[in-house]
């Protein structure tokens, strides 16, 4: 087996992808999992470059490692869930199922590698334009225009769905500046609307109001001190 530079890079990034993937599954802390998954994405992006597909590699890093993982990390931080507790599994029989499935799939991979009908495929090195942004764009906007438009509609539906899912029950807002509550009335208004929407008992107007005024007074004093 010849060990040229591309092979070395494949082993490096393939090993990085597999290692990060295993680390992602093994970690109990969701944030560590997310960082491992970013490692997988970056390794896969490098493999796409190795496959002479710079456009997909760039999109991989920007969309996956950038946008999607930021979303995931944001949700992890927002929920602030503690580490998974080590408690007995309810569905304990799933572990042997997982191991069996893994054995089957790894066996398939070994079959591909050893019997290797596919390895006789010779890469068409003559077609250098495949994978460049221009060829991908031409394909997207001519032959595959309909799927492209369908994905844009899909994105719109996902946007509407996500906003609908994540929206809280609305709190009544003042209509015009004249309706803005005066100092001390605001919390009562919020408490009133919260009570109307079924969340009563959370906000206690009297105590919160006094606390807020105290905090505001301290802030004013601190500002005067810092100006001097």
């Amino acid at each position, binding site marked *: 087996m010849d060990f040229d530079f591309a092979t070395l890079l494949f082993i490096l990034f393939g090993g990085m992808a597999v290692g990060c993937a295993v680390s992602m599954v093994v970690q109990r802390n969701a944030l560590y999992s997310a960082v491992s998954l970013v490692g997988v994405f970056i390794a896969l992006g490098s493999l796409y470059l190795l496959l002479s597909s710079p456009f997909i590699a760039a999109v991989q890093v920007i969309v*996956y490692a950038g946008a999607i993982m930021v979303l995931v990390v944001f949700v992890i931080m927002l929920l602030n869930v503690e580490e998974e507790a080590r408690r007995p599994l309810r569905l304990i029989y799933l572990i042997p199922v997982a191991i069996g499935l893994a054995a089957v799939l790894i066996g398939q991979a070994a079959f591909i590698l050893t019997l290797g009908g596919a390895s006789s495929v010779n890469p068409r090195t003559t077609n250098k334009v*495949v994978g460049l942004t221009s060829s991908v764009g031409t394909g997207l906007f001519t032959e595959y225009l309909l799927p492209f438009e369908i994905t844009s509609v899909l994105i719109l539906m996902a946007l509407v769905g996500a906003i609908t899912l994540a929206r809280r029950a609305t709190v009544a807002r003042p209509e015009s500046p004249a309706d803005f509550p005066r100092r001390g009335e605001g919390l009562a208004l919020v408490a009133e609307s919260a009570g109307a929407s079924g969340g009563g008992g959370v906000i206690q107007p009297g105590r919160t109001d006094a606390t807020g005024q105290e905090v505001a007074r301290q802030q004013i004093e601190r500002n005067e001190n810092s100006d001097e």
Partner: protein
Amino acid sequence: MIPLSWYLALSAVLFTIGVVGVIIKRNAIQMFMCIELMLNAVNLTFVAFSSYFGDVTGQLFVFIVMTVAAAEAAVGLGIILAVFRNRESIDVDDASVLRL
């Protein structure tokens, strides 16, 4: 040049790790990330075939898969947020019934 079968084997291994993760994890966000890993393994297969056969169609499909993954991320995380708001937990064992 690296044989095509190496890429396919790597993709199969990554997909397997994703499957195992979805089965053994109970944190909804981690299961979600394992699904992303499976999508990426399939993407690797698409790009490898596209590059080896000199046909750009596979890469267009990867583009569409990425779009679907982004939509899935938005909706899936919205669902996780909604579940957390109702149950104070994102452990899927705590969300095993549809009613509250």
